[in-house]
Structures are given as C-alpha cells and as structure tokens.
C-alpha cells in the first residue's frame, strides 16, 4: 500500500517535473518554440524521465527484494532459545515471527518459556526492521527523484538536444523489452537444467533414461516407510510416443485432406465458413478436451470395445475378446484420438500455408499438360511442398508433452 502510494506520488512529482522542464525551455527561448532545438514537450519529458524513472525503478526493485532483505536482517542472529531446534523448525519460527509481525495467521506451533520470550523479541525486531527497510527505501527513492530533477533541469537550454536524449531513453526501454524475451529463454533453460541437475543428484541418469518402472514416490522423512521410488522414464516415453502416434493417425489425414480440399477445390464461400469453424477446434482450451475424453470418448470407446469383446469371448478370438472386455476409460487410444482432434486445425492450417506457398505457375503448367486436379496436387503441388509438409505432421510430437 505504502509503495503504491509512493508510486502515485512519484507520478505526480514526475508530472510537475514535466511542467518545470517545459517552462524552463520556453523561458530560455523567450516564449518562442521555434528558437528551441526540440519541441517544448521533449524538454518536459526529459525532466520528467530523470525525475521519475530511476526512482520508480528503485521502488519496484524494493518491492521485489525488500522482503528478502528483511528476512536476511531478521535471521542474521538466531536467538539461543531456538538453537536446539532443527533447521526446519527454525524456519517455521521465523515465518511465524513475520506472520505475527505483519498481522497474518501464524502456524499452530506454540512457543513457551524462553522460546516465547525470544519470539516476542523477534516480533518486535521484525517490525522495527521492516519499518527501517521501508522508510529508508522511500527516502532513497525521494532523494533519487530529487537528484534526477536537479541533474536534468540545469541542462535545459535553447541549444540542448532534448529530443535526441528522450529518444535515447525510448530506445533503451525498447531494447530492454526485447531482452526480456531473451531472458525468458535463458530462464527456461536455467530452471530446467537446475531442476534436472538436482533430480539427477538422487536418481542416476541411466536409471532414468533406461529404467522401465515409473512410480514416483519418495520418503519425505527418514522414518517413513515408503518404498524407494522408481524413476524409469521409459514407460513415459513409450506412452507419449504411442499417444503421439495415434494422434497423428487421426490428425494427419483429416488435417491434410481438409487443407487440400479447402485450398484447391472449395469455393470462397465454403472456405470462409469452414476455416473459422476449424479455428474453433484450435481455440477450445485443453481442459475441455480432457473433459470430453474423460466423460464422452472414454466411456463410449469402453462400451464399444466391451461389446465387441463380449461377442468374441468363447469364439476363436477368445484371447482378444477377454482383453477387450477389460479395457478401461483411460486407455491410450482415447487420449490419442482426442489429442488428434485437437491437432486437426494445427495440421490443417500449417498444411494450408504450405500448399498456398507453392507458386500458381506450377499448377498452371500441370493443368496445361492435361493433368487433373488430383494429379496436379499429388504429383506437383505436394512434392513441391514436401520439404514443408512434414512439419505439420511433427506438431503432435510437441503437443502431448504439453498437455495435462
């Protein structure tokens, strides 16, 4: 709350700096904007940026890291009364201290005697520290804002290139935004590597890659009687590839053929109706497909297979019949088919783009030779698009791992 108020105040200060900068420039030029290097608003913006931006950045950083600084200061010295506790209990102690200090609900652990005294002392210390941290941050931000304004204002004169400076700021912000995308990638890579490294500390890489049993349980405490978990990923790989394969069997033909029909045969009206409808399939959230699989496709397939199985039991295909009688709702076929439905629009729109990228002259040449439409598509368009017609079929590969 305090930070938001101070940000609001900073915005007002920045607006005042804008007026001051603009006024100073106009005064320097004797009231005529034509004698200035830049438009008067650029002088205002220059002053406002120096007054507002560094202080706002400081406040934001304080918002993000202030809590950690408080933690570090509070835990710098651990009272003797809690020295006997385990590290986990000490963490609970400190989080309770902070919860009580900030008026939130603490855990249900009770502290007696020396612990109680230490607790109350720490609560008071926590309140003091957080006050100090907050107000010193505010004071620092105030000083930075004032300093920025004092730095910027004297520079403003008729010869000062305010526009170039402001555009320099803009370029800086733009670059920072594009770097954000790169940092995201870096973050993804680092978080994956870090977590995997920690995982491979306890599970050997080969056991993970080649193990055939997946039952991820692990004893949380030493005294717990939980069987050592097995972390063989082969079942997961197999499951993923199986589902992917089934999904491709559904999505690839339907998507590819509908793309071909829409781009080569369909008239404009049909195309403009069917394409948005296919887009709806792409826009449906994945949980909805999960719901559809669990409550519609699963029971339907199960009932169907069970019925077929019941027919076969006792006949020459007794084994298959017995198997079909036992299939469950959660079979890979259901997941694969539903995933396939989900991927139809992706395959279709990518194939569509690729088919449309084949130059019309190739088609015209083929028609001139007397080829029919389907021959043109099969013998000319698709081979020409071939380098690109595989990626849509690879799309399912990335999708299953992406969906819950």
């Amino acid at each position, binding site marked *: 709350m305090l930070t938001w108020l101070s940000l609001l105040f900073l915005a007002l200060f920045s607006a005042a700096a804008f007026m001051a900068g603009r006024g100073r420039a106009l005064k320097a030029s004797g009231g005529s904007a034509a004698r200035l290097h830049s438009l008067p608003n650029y002088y205002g913006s220059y002053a406002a940026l120096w007054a507002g931006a560094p202080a706002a950045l400081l406040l934001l950083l304080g918002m993000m890291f202030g809590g950690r600084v408080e933690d570090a200061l509070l835990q710098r010295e651990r009272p003797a009364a809690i020295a006997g506790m385990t590290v986990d209990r000490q963490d609970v102690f400190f989080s309770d201290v902070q919860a009580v200090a900030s008026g939130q609900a603490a855990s249900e652990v009770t502290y007696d005697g020396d612990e109680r005294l230490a607790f109350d002392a720490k609560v008071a210390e926590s309140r003091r520290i957080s006050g100090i941290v907050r107000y010193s941050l505010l004071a620092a931000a105030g000083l930075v804002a004032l300093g920025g304004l004092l730095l910027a204002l004297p520079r403003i004169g008729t010869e000062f290139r305010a526009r170039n400076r402001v555009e320099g700021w803009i370029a800086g912000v733009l670059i920072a935004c594009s770097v954000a*995308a790169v940092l995201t*990638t870096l973050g*993804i890579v680092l978080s994956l590597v870090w977590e995997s490294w920690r995982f491979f500390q306890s599970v050997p890489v080969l056991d993970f890659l080649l193990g055939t049993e997946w039952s991820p349980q692990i004893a949380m405490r030493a005294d717990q009687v939980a069987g050592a978990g097995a972390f063989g990923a082969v079942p997961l790989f197999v499951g993923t590839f199986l589902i992917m394969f089934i999904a491709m069997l559904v999505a690839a033909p339907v998507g590819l053929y509908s793309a071909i029909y829409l781009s080569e045969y369909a008239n404009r009206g049909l195309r403009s109706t069917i394409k948005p409808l296919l887009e709806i399939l792409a826009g449906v*959230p*994945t949980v909805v497909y999960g719901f559809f699989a669990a409550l519609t496709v699963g029971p339907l397939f199960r009932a169907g297979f069970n019925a077929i199985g019941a027919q076969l039991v006792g006949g020459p295909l007794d084994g298959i019949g017995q198997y079909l009688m036992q299939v469950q709702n959660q079979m890979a076929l259901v997941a694969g088919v539903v995933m396939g439905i989900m991927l139809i629009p992706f395959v279709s729109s990518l194939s569509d783009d690729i088919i449309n990228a084949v130059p019309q002259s190739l088609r015209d040449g083929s028609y001139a030779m007397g080829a029919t439409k389907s021959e043109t598509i099969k013998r000319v368009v698709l081979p020409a698009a071939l380098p690109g017609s595989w990626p849509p079929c690879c799309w399912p590969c990335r999708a299953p791992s992406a969906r819950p």
Partner: protein
Amino acid sequence: MTDAARSAGAAKRAPLTAREAMLKKRHRSEAWFKAQGVAAIIIAMIFLVVLVGRVVGQGYSTFLTHSISVPVYLDPSRVDAAALEGVNYDYLVAEGMMKKLGVQDDDLGLISGKVMDLTSRDLGFQLLNQLKADPSLIGKTVTVTGPMKADADLYYKGEIKRSTLEEDRKLDNQQLDWLDQLQKSGAVTAGFNVKFFTNSDSTEPEQAGVLGAVVGSAMMLLITALIAVPVGVMAAVYLEEFAPKNRWTDVIEVNINNLAAVPSIVYGLLGLALFINWLHVPRSSPLVGGLVLALMALPTVIIATRSSLKAVPPSIREAALGVGASKAQTVFHHVLPLAMPGVMTGAILSLAHALGETAPLLMIGMVSFVPGVPEGFTGASTVLPVQVFIWENASERAFHERTAAAIIVLLVFMIVMNAAAVILRRRFERRW
C-alpha cells in the same frame, strides 16, 4: 494380310479404349480424391459438433435449478438466543420438511437423516443469518427458500432415474417418493440458477458457482495484458523498426519464434522457479498466474505485432522522414498507430489463448479450493480453466454437470474475445 489388317484394326481401336479406360480411371481417382477431402472436412465438423454438443448437452441443465420453500418453526426450546451458532438448523429444516411430507422421525433419526439429504444446507445458513439479524423470530415460523440438494435436483431433471437399481443411485425409493410428493404439492419451483453466477466454489455442488473463478480469471488476464502487451509491442517495435540487422538480432528473432513453440507447461516450471521460489510472489494468486501467462503470451504478441508492422508500407515511413520527423517520431506517430488494429487483434487472440491455459497454472500450484472471490491481486484465487479441472476430478455426479456449465462460461468468454478480434480486424484493418 488379313491377319495383319485385323491386327492393325484392332490396334487402331485398342488404344482408343485403353485411353478411354485410363481417362475413366483418372476421373474416378479424381472423384475419389475429392471425396476424401470432403470426408475429411465432414469428419472434422462431426468432431466439432459432437464436442460442443456434448458440452452444451451436459452443461445446460445446470442453468436450471429447483428450489423449495419450507416453513420452519423456530422452537424456543431448541434455539438458544445466546448461542445461535450452536443450533442444528439442518435438523430444524428437516422437521419443517417432515411436517410438509407428513412423516414422523423414528428413534434412530433415520427418517430425518434421509429428509436432510433432500435440501441444501443453505436453508440452515439462511435461518442462522435471519436469526442473527432479528433474534425476535424465535418461537415463530419462518419460511425459507433455497436450493434442493444436488442429487434431488438431478432427479427432477431426469438425470437420476427411478429405473436405475436402488443400490446404484444416491437416493432410495422412499426419497424419490417424497420428491414426487413435494413436486405435486407445488412446494418445489424450477428457475434460473442464479447461484451458479453469484457463488464461488463450494464442497456442495448445489452451492458451487463460478463467480470466484470468473473474477480470478479477469484479474489474472488484466495482469497478463498489462505486462505482455506493452512489453511485447515495444520489443516488436525495436526488432522491426530500430534494430540493426546483424547476428544478434537474428538470434533474438529465432529465439522468439522458438519461445512461441515451447510447451506451456515449461512456462509453469519457469514461473515456479522464478516467481515463487526466487521472488516469493504469493502462491495461487492472480499476480503470479498473470506473470506466468504474460511470459507465455509475450512471444505471440511480438510475432503478431511484427507482422502488422511489416504490413505498413514503407511509403508511410519515407513520407514522415521526408518532412523531417525523427525515426522515433515516424514510428510512434505514424507507423504504430496504423499497425494498431493488427496489434490489438494479435494481442486479444493471445490473451484468449492465455485465458484457456491450465497446464502452467497447475505447475505453479494454482489448484486450491478457494471458496470465495479473490481478495486482491495477491490473494488466493482460482481461475476458470483450473475450476473446470478441479470439478472435472470431483467424484460427485452433480459436479460433472457443473464442469460442463463452467466450460460453457469459459467458451462464451473465449468466443466474445475472438469475436472482438475479428470485428476489430474487419473494421479497422487497412489494406494498402
């Protein structure tokens, strides 16, 4: 001679029929190919119709609900004005119901237990609240109106059938008789399920609603929009208009295209490490969800913005530069405003996509039971797709109905957003 002549004649005719046959074959294969295309489209459309049809078919009944009015006698010997919280209001309601049904409780309380299974506990809460507001009601008869219990509601809607074996349904024959009796007496009224839109999640299906999830989704989407759209647009402006074309910008470009293809669950992993473990953003809050989805939406916003900036013809830039505008003025005064419809369309579409995303939110632990509207951007919250996910895994049958209804609400939001994008594109997009 004759042989040769005959063979020559045959040869003359033979190619003709062979060609005809071949032509016929080619035309057949043409028709077959075309039929395959039509079949593919029909299959895709059937999938769409079945998907939407099933969801709507399972969900629409949620919007109708049955409620009951019960006169309850607030017995002064049972209701202690000093300890209003301690009274068993459910039993008082059951008494009112039993009077209505004309049955007596037995010694074991089995009958009253069965009667209690018919009405929602909401009736009891209403009594408590009325008494708190006006303690003078003790000793009087108060009529409360509230929802039936979910199973009773399902019976009225025909989802639970009398023909099912008694052991296989939640309600036994006696309870069904009572329900029929209540319906005949006119105590039960059917109406629009307002509670579904004014309540948040609840452990009792008849009380569960989507308000908390809708508000949570709106707050989360606001955070996503406030971060992803400005950052994405500015990054795209830099890459498209300002950046020198060198190896570094190539790397950034490839990188952004790859980011757009990263599975969404990986963003959840990143969010877990970055926002929760490192920055200590409160768990399960709209803020952390919005941040994660903003990272996810960023590349798509950048790509959409870049393509609409590319579509602005160079003549606009040259004209602006020609009359003395600086590079930044050209971009921000002329190019970006002209590209804005395309930018907004892309932004809305990627936000609509973010709205339906579940996997990254599950990864950051946003699957908690939240029985209220989020208290703020850092308060515990749930969002629509996660609410769907939670209800989908609930065992009670009435929750399945509500899952489908929540999906309908979610789809309506997405359709509205997509329609907004389409309208924006149709109305404002300029073609040069």
